[in-house]
Protein backbone atom coordinates (compact mmCIF):
# COMPACT_ATOMS: atom_id res chain seq x y z
CA UNK A 1 0.00 0.00 0.00
CA UNK A 2 1.27 3.45 -0.87
CA UNK A 3 2.10 5.63 2.11
CA UNK A 4 1.45 9.36 2.25
CA UNK A 5 3.53 12.44 2.90
CA UNK A 6 2.23 15.03 5.34
CA UNK A 7 1.53 18.56 4.08
CA UNK A 8 1.30 20.62 7.26
CA UNK A 9 -0.44 24.00 7.41
CA UNK A 10 2.05 26.34 9.05
CA UNK A 11 0.80 29.83 9.94
CA UNK A 12 3.43 32.57 9.94
CA UNK A 13 6.31 30.28 8.92
CA UNK A 14 9.82 31.67 9.48
CA UNK A 15 10.86 33.26 6.17
CA UNK A 16 14.12 34.91 7.25
CA UNK A 17 17.27 33.69 8.97
CA UNK A 18 16.86 34.16 12.71
CA UNK A 19 18.45 33.22 16.03
CA UNK A 20 14.99 32.77 17.57
CA UNK A 21 13.98 29.33 18.90
CA UNK A 22 11.84 28.26 15.97
CA UNK A 23 10.43 24.75 15.60
CA UNK A 24 10.26 22.09 12.89
CA UNK A 25 7.47 19.82 11.69
CA UNK A 26 7.93 16.62 9.66
CA UNK A 27 6.58 15.73 6.20
CA UNK A 28 6.72 11.99 6.92
CA UNK A 29 5.18 10.14 9.84
CA UNK A 30 7.61 9.72 12.76
CA UNK A 31 7.33 6.57 14.87
CA UNK A 32 5.00 6.97 17.85
CA UNK A 33 6.77 7.19 21.20
CA UNK A 34 4.91 4.14 22.47
CA UNK A 35 6.08 2.07 19.49
CA UNK A 36 9.80 2.58 20.13
CA UNK A 37 11.65 -0.68 20.80
CA UNK A 38 15.01 -1.23 22.52
CA UNK A 39 16.66 -1.02 19.11
CA UNK A 40 15.08 2.40 18.49
CA UNK A 41 16.00 3.73 21.94
CA UNK A 42 19.61 2.72 21.32
CA UNK A 43 19.47 4.54 17.96
CA UNK A 44 18.29 7.73 19.64
CA UNK A 45 21.48 7.72 21.82
CA UNK A 46 19.77 10.04 24.34
CA UNK A 47 16.37 8.87 25.60
CA UNK A 48 15.16 12.50 25.76
CA UNK A 49 15.32 12.63 21.97
CA UNK A 50 12.19 10.45 21.87
CA UNK A 51 10.27 13.71 22.41
CA UNK A 52 11.52 15.13 19.09
CA UNK A 53 9.51 14.32 15.92
CA UNK A 54 12.71 14.83 13.89
CA UNK A 55 14.59 12.11 15.77
CA UNK A 56 11.54 9.83 15.90
CA UNK A 57 11.42 10.08 12.11
CA UNK A 58 15.13 9.42 11.62
CA UNK A 59 15.03 6.53 14.11
CA UNK A 60 13.14 4.52 11.49
CA UNK A 61 16.74 3.61 10.50
CA UNK A 62 18.20 3.36 14.02
CA UNK A 63 21.73 2.15 13.22
CA UNK A 64 22.34 5.05 10.84
CA UNK A 65 20.90 7.57 13.30
CA UNK A 66 23.06 6.25 16.13
CA UNK A 67 26.29 6.50 14.15
CA UNK A 68 25.33 9.92 12.78
CA UNK A 69 24.55 11.29 16.26
CA UNK A 70 27.86 10.06 17.66
CA UNK A 71 29.76 11.54 14.69
CA UNK A 72 28.00 14.86 15.30
CA UNK A 73 28.82 14.94 19.01
CA UNK A 74 32.56 14.33 18.54
CA UNK A 75 32.83 16.93 15.78
CA UNK A 76 31.15 19.66 17.84
CA UNK A 77 31.63 18.79 21.53
CA UNK A 78 35.12 17.30 21.69
CA UNK A 79 36.83 20.60 22.45
CA UNK A 80 39.72 19.55 24.66
CA UNK A 81 41.99 20.40 21.73
CA UNK A 82 41.36 22.12 18.45
CA UNK A 83 38.99 24.83 17.30
CA UNK A 84 36.87 26.58 19.96
CA UNK A 85 33.25 25.44 19.98
CA UNK A 86 32.07 28.90 18.86
CA UNK A 87 33.98 28.62 15.60
CA UNK A 88 32.79 25.07 14.89
CA UNK A 89 29.27 26.45 15.26
CA UNK A 90 30.25 29.33 12.96
CA UNK A 91 31.24 26.80 10.28
CA UNK A 92 27.89 25.02 10.79
CA UNK A 93 26.01 28.32 10.53
CA UNK A 94 27.89 29.36 7.38
CA UNK A 95 27.12 26.05 5.64
CA UNK A 96 23.46 26.30 6.70
CA UNK A 97 23.20 29.93 5.57
CA UNK A 98 24.68 29.09 2.18
CA UNK A 99 22.53 25.98 1.62
CA UNK A 100 19.47 27.89 2.84
CA UNK A 101 18.46 25.85 5.90
CA UNK A 102 16.59 28.38 8.05
CA UNK A 103 16.02 25.88 10.87
CA UNK A 104 19.63 24.59 11.08
CA UNK A 105 20.98 28.15 10.89
CA UNK A 106 18.71 29.22 13.77
CA UNK A 107 19.99 26.53 16.14
CA UNK A 108 23.67 26.83 15.31
CA UNK A 109 23.75 30.62 15.09
CA UNK A 110 22.38 30.66 18.66
CA UNK A 111 25.19 28.32 19.72
CA UNK A 112 27.77 30.42 17.86
CA UNK A 113 26.50 33.60 19.58
CA UNK A 114 26.38 31.98 22.99
CA UNK A 115 29.90 30.58 22.84
CA UNK A 116 31.53 33.56 21.11
CA UNK A 117 29.60 36.42 22.77
CA UNK A 118 29.56 37.97 19.29
CA UNK A 119 25.82 37.85 18.62
CA UNK A 120 25.96 40.97 16.48
CA UNK A 121 28.47 39.47 14.07
CA UNK A 122 26.55 36.20 13.94
CA UNK A 123 23.38 38.14 13.12
CA UNK A 124 25.28 39.98 10.38
CA UNK A 125 26.10 36.61 8.80
CA UNK A 126 22.41 35.67 8.91
CA UNK A 127 21.23 39.06 7.59
CA UNK A 128 23.83 39.79 4.95
CA UNK A 129 24.79 36.27 3.96
CA UNK A 130 28.15 34.57 3.58
CA UNK A 131 29.88 37.67 2.15
CA UNK A 132 29.36 39.63 5.41
CA UNK A 133 32.54 41.15 6.87
CA UNK A 134 33.07 39.57 10.29
CA UNK A 135 36.79 40.23 10.71
CA UNK A 136 39.51 38.21 8.98
CA UNK A 137 39.56 35.11 11.21
CA UNK A 138 35.81 34.57 10.96
CA UNK A 139 35.79 35.60 7.29
CA UNK A 140 38.36 32.87 6.60
CA UNK A 141 36.29 30.25 8.45
CA UNK A 142 33.10 31.28 6.62
CA UNK A 143 34.82 31.33 3.21
CA UNK A 144 36.30 27.85 3.77
CA UNK A 145 32.93 26.47 4.93
CA UNK A 146 31.19 27.95 1.90
CA UNK A 147 33.80 26.61 -0.54
CA UNK A 148 33.33 23.14 0.93
CA UNK A 149 29.54 23.48 0.80
CA UNK A 150 29.51 24.53 -2.87
CA UNK A 151 28.44 21.62 -5.06
CA UNK A 152 30.82 20.44 -6.40
CA UNK A 153 33.09 21.67 -3.59
CA UNK A 154 35.68 24.32 -4.52
CA UNK A 155 37.72 24.13 -1.31
CA UNK A 156 41.41 24.42 -2.20
CA UNK A 157 44.87 25.12 -0.83
CA UNK A 158 44.11 28.86 -0.87
CA UNK A 159 41.49 28.25 1.83
CA UNK A 160 43.97 26.30 3.95
CA UNK A 161 46.56 29.08 3.55
CA UNK A 162 44.04 31.74 4.54
CA UNK A 163 42.96 29.79 7.65
CA UNK A 164 46.58 29.19 8.52
CA UNK A 165 47.37 32.91 8.15
CA UNK A 166 44.39 33.64 10.42
CA UNK A 167 46.08 31.56 13.13
CA UNK A 168 44.46 28.11 12.76
CA UNK A 169 46.69 25.05 13.05
CA UNK A 170 46.06 21.83 11.12
CA UNK A 171 43.77 20.27 13.73
CA UNK A 172 41.72 23.47 13.87
CA UNK A 173 41.47 23.53 10.06
CA UNK A 174 40.33 19.89 10.16
CA UNK A 175 37.65 20.98 12.67
CA UNK A 176 36.40 23.64 10.21
CA UNK A 177 36.27 20.98 7.49
CA UNK A 178 34.32 18.57 9.69
CA UNK A 179 31.93 21.23 10.99
CA UNK A 180 31.02 22.45 7.50
CA UNK A 181 30.91 18.92 6.05
CA UNK A 182 28.63 17.68 8.81
CA UNK A 183 26.11 20.41 8.05
CA UNK A 184 26.00 19.24 4.47
CA UNK A 185 24.55 16.10 6.00
CA UNK A 186 22.24 17.84 8.51
CA UNK A 187 20.96 20.54 6.12
CA UNK A 188 19.86 17.93 3.59
CA UNK A 189 17.80 16.04 6.17
CA UNK A 190 16.24 19.08 7.81
CA UNK A 191 15.35 20.76 4.53
CA UNK A 192 13.95 17.69 2.82
CA UNK A 193 12.03 15.88 5.56
CA UNK A 194 10.06 18.76 7.04
CA UNK A 195 9.81 22.52 7.47
CA UNK A 196 10.34 25.23 10.10
CA UNK A 197 7.54 26.46 12.34
CA UNK A 198 7.39 29.81 14.17
CA UNK A 199 8.80 30.42 17.66
CA UNK A 200 6.23 30.06 20.41
Amino acid at each position, binding site marked *: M*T*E*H*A*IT*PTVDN*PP*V*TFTQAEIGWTP*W*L*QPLAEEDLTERHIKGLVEAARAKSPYFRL*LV*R*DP*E*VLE*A*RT*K*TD*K*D*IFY*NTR*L*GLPRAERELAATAASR*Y*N*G*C*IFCASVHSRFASHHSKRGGDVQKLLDE*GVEADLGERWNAIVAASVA*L*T*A*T*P*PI*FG*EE*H*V*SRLSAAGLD*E*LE*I*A*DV*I*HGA*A*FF*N*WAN*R*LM*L*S*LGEPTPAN
Partner: protein
Amino acid sequence: MTIASPDIIDLLAGITAGSALDRIRAQRPEAREQAQKSFLALFQPTDFGDVSAAERHAVASFVAGLHRQPDIFEFYISPFEERGTDRWLIEVIKAEIGAGRAKGPYGHYPDGPLRGENEAGPLYQVSPASREALGPKLSAALEHAHLLVFHLRDASPQALQVLLDAGWTTTGVVTLSQLVSFVAFQIRVIAGLAVLSTAAKRAAA
Protein backbone atom coordinates in the same frame (compact mmCIF):
# COMPACT_ATOMS: atom_id res chain seq x y z
CA MET B 1 29.69 -11.60 6.15
CA THR B 2 32.11 -8.76 6.01
CA ILE B 3 35.79 -8.81 6.66
CA ALA B 4 37.07 -5.77 8.54
CA SER B 5 36.67 -2.86 6.14
CA PRO B 6 39.42 -0.28 5.82
CA ASP B 7 38.49 3.20 6.98
CA ILE B 8 36.86 4.58 3.84
CA ILE B 9 37.62 8.26 4.48
CA ASP B 10 41.31 7.46 5.07
CA LEU B 11 41.35 5.27 1.98
CA LEU B 12 39.76 7.83 -0.33
CA ALA B 13 41.57 10.87 1.13
CA GLY B 14 44.92 9.06 0.84
CA ILE B 15 45.61 9.21 4.59
CA THR B 16 48.23 6.67 5.59
CA ALA B 17 49.13 5.36 9.04
CA GLY B 18 51.56 7.65 10.86
CA SER B 19 51.00 10.64 8.55
CA ALA B 20 50.19 14.13 9.84
CA LEU B 21 46.55 13.71 8.88
CA ASP B 22 46.40 10.32 10.57
CA ARG B 23 47.49 12.02 13.81
CA ILE B 24 44.92 14.78 13.33
CA ARG B 25 42.11 12.29 12.77
CA ALA B 26 43.25 10.41 15.88
CA GLN B 27 42.31 13.52 17.91
CA ARG B 28 38.67 12.91 16.93
CA PRO B 29 38.54 9.12 17.41
CA GLU B 30 34.80 8.92 17.86
CA ALA B 31 34.07 11.00 14.75
CA ARG B 32 36.42 8.79 12.78
CA GLU B 33 34.92 5.56 14.06
CA GLN B 34 31.31 6.68 13.80
CA ALA B 35 31.71 8.10 10.27
CA GLN B 36 32.90 4.62 9.33
CA LYS B 37 30.00 3.04 11.24
CA SER B 38 27.61 5.34 9.36
CA PHE B 39 29.09 4.06 6.12
CA LEU B 40 28.73 0.45 7.26
CA ALA B 41 25.15 1.00 8.50
CA LEU B 42 24.23 2.37 5.07
CA PHE B 43 26.18 0.02 2.79
CA GLN B 44 26.63 -3.18 4.80
CA PRO B 45 23.63 -3.25 7.15
CA THR B 46 22.59 -6.47 8.86
CA ASP B 47 19.20 -5.99 7.26
CA PHE B 48 18.81 -4.08 3.98
CA GLY B 49 15.17 -3.46 4.82
CA ASP B 50 13.34 -1.52 2.11
CA VAL B 51 16.42 -0.43 0.13
CA SER B 52 18.48 -3.00 -1.78
CA ALA B 53 22.27 -3.06 -1.91
CA ALA B 54 22.12 -2.26 -5.63
CA GLU B 55 19.86 0.76 -5.03
CA ARG B 56 22.22 2.03 -2.33
CA HIS B 57 25.30 1.75 -4.53
CA ALA B 58 23.56 3.15 -7.60
CA VAL B 59 22.40 6.27 -5.72
CA ALA B 60 25.76 6.77 -3.95
CA SER B 61 27.71 6.55 -7.20
CA PHE B 62 25.27 9.00 -8.82
CA VAL B 63 25.79 11.44 -5.91
CA ALA B 64 29.59 11.09 -6.15
CA GLY B 65 29.44 11.63 -9.91
CA LEU B 66 27.32 14.77 -9.53
CA HIS B 67 29.97 16.05 -7.10
CA ARG B 68 32.63 15.30 -9.78
CA GLN B 69 34.58 13.00 -7.51
CA PRO B 70 35.88 10.26 -9.83
CA ASP B 71 37.58 8.19 -7.12
CA ILE B 72 34.52 8.17 -4.88
CA PHE B 73 32.29 7.40 -7.88
CA GLU B 74 34.58 4.48 -8.72
CA PHE B 75 34.46 3.24 -5.12
CA TYR B 76 30.66 3.11 -5.03
CA ILE B 77 30.19 1.77 -8.57
CA SER B 78 32.78 -1.02 -8.18
CA PRO B 79 30.37 -3.77 -7.01
CA PHE B 80 28.65 -3.49 -10.40
CA GLU B 81 31.97 -3.86 -12.22
CA GLU B 82 32.62 -7.16 -10.51
CA ARG B 83 29.47 -8.63 -11.98
CA GLY B 84 29.45 -8.63 -15.77
CA THR B 85 25.66 -8.66 -15.89
CA ASP B 86 25.48 -5.18 -14.28
CA ARG B 87 27.60 -3.31 -16.82
CA TRP B 88 24.51 -1.77 -18.41
CA LEU B 89 23.72 -0.12 -15.07
CA ILE B 90 27.14 1.56 -14.94
CA GLU B 91 26.56 3.00 -18.41
CA VAL B 92 23.10 4.27 -17.49
CA ILE B 93 24.34 5.93 -14.29
CA LYS B 94 27.24 7.55 -16.13
CA ALA B 95 24.85 8.91 -18.75
CA GLU B 96 22.55 10.29 -16.03
CA ILE B 97 25.48 11.93 -14.21
CA GLY B 98 26.37 13.65 -17.47
CA ALA B 99 22.78 14.83 -17.92
CA GLY B 100 22.44 15.92 -14.28
CA ARG B 101 25.58 18.04 -13.92
CA ALA B 102 24.97 21.43 -12.33
CA LYS B 103 26.38 23.86 -9.78
CA GLY B 104 24.71 24.31 -6.43
CA PRO B 105 23.32 25.22 -4.07
CA TYR B 106 20.47 26.87 -5.99
CA GLY B 107 16.72 26.96 -5.45
CA HIS B 108 13.92 28.95 -3.92
CA TYR B 109 13.26 30.45 -0.50
CA PRO B 110 9.81 30.72 1.03
CA ASP B 111 7.89 33.88 0.08
CA GLY B 112 9.43 36.82 1.91
CA PRO B 113 12.56 38.96 1.92
CA LEU B 114 14.85 36.05 0.98
CA ARG B 115 13.21 35.76 -2.44
CA GLY B 116 15.92 38.14 -3.69
CA GLU B 117 18.36 35.28 -3.08
CA ASN B 118 16.42 32.75 -5.17
CA GLU B 119 18.62 31.14 -7.79
CA ALA B 120 17.40 29.32 -10.85
CA GLY B 121 18.85 25.97 -11.84
CA PRO B 122 17.96 22.81 -13.72
CA LEU B 123 15.12 20.48 -12.73
CA TYR B 124 16.65 17.13 -13.55
CA GLN B 125 14.64 14.21 -14.83
CA VAL B 126 15.89 10.76 -15.72
CA SER B 127 15.80 10.31 -19.50
CA PRO B 128 12.99 8.11 -20.89
CA ALA B 129 15.46 5.46 -22.06
CA SER B 130 17.20 5.32 -18.67
CA ARG B 131 13.86 5.25 -16.86
CA GLU B 132 12.91 2.23 -18.93
CA ALA B 133 16.13 0.49 -17.88
CA LEU B 134 16.17 1.54 -14.19
CA GLY B 135 12.47 1.19 -13.44
CA PRO B 136 10.30 3.73 -11.60
CA LYS B 137 11.66 3.19 -8.09
CA LEU B 138 15.35 3.77 -8.80
CA SER B 139 14.54 6.54 -11.30
CA ALA B 140 12.58 8.41 -8.62
CA ALA B 141 15.51 7.95 -6.22
CA LEU B 142 17.98 9.49 -8.68
CA GLU B 143 15.69 12.47 -9.27
CA HIS B 144 15.32 12.99 -5.53
CA ALA B 145 19.08 12.60 -5.01
CA HIS B 146 19.68 15.35 -7.59
CA LEU B 147 17.32 17.65 -5.65
CA LEU B 148 19.15 16.89 -2.39
CA VAL B 149 22.58 17.35 -3.92
CA PHE B 150 22.06 20.64 -5.75
CA HIS B 151 18.87 22.44 -4.71
CA LEU B 152 17.94 21.15 -1.30
CA ARG B 153 15.95 24.26 -0.44
CA ASP B 154 13.41 23.30 -3.17
CA ALA B 155 12.46 20.16 -1.21
CA SER B 156 8.73 19.67 -0.53
CA PRO B 157 6.20 17.12 0.73
CA GLN B 158 5.25 16.65 -2.95
CA ALA B 159 8.79 15.49 -3.74
CA LEU B 160 8.47 12.86 -0.99
CA GLN B 161 5.06 11.80 -2.32
CA VAL B 162 6.67 11.15 -5.72
CA LEU B 163 9.01 8.68 -4.00
CA LEU B 164 6.17 7.01 -2.09
CA ASP B 165 4.13 6.71 -5.30
CA ALA B 166 7.12 5.11 -7.04
CA GLY B 167 7.24 2.30 -4.48
CA TRP B 168 9.36 3.73 -1.65
CA THR B 169 8.17 3.21 1.93
CA THR B 170 8.40 5.94 4.58
CA THR B 171 11.28 4.08 6.24
CA GLY B 172 12.92 3.57 2.85
CA VAL B 173 12.75 7.33 2.21
CA VAL B 174 14.48 7.96 5.55
CA THR B 175 17.28 5.56 4.59
CA LEU B 176 17.57 7.09 1.10
CA SER B 177 17.71 10.62 2.55
CA GLN B 178 20.36 9.58 5.06
CA LEU B 179 22.37 7.89 2.33
CA VAL B 180 22.45 10.89 -0.01
CA SER B 181 23.15 13.27 2.89
CA PHE B 182 25.86 11.02 4.36
CA VAL B 183 27.64 10.77 1.01
CA ALA B 184 27.45 14.59 0.69
CA PHE B 185 29.22 14.75 4.09
CA GLN B 186 31.73 12.02 3.32
CA ILE B 187 32.71 13.63 0.01
CA ARG B 188 33.44 16.93 1.76
CA VAL B 189 35.49 15.36 4.53
CA ILE B 190 37.50 13.45 1.93
CA ALA B 191 37.94 16.47 -0.34
CA GLY B 192 38.78 18.77 2.57
CA LEU B 193 41.26 16.42 4.25
CA ALA B 194 42.93 15.58 0.93
CA VAL B 195 43.61 19.31 0.37
CA LEU B 196 44.82 19.72 3.96
CA SER B 197 47.07 16.69 3.57
CA THR B 198 48.69 18.11 0.43
CA ALA B 199 49.19 21.46 2.14
CA ALA B 200 50.67 19.78 5.23
CA LYS B 201 53.14 17.75 3.13
CA ARG B 202 54.20 20.90 1.27
CA ALA B 203 54.72 22.78 4.53
CA ALA B 204 56.85 19.93 5.89
CA ALA B 205 58.97 19.60 2.72
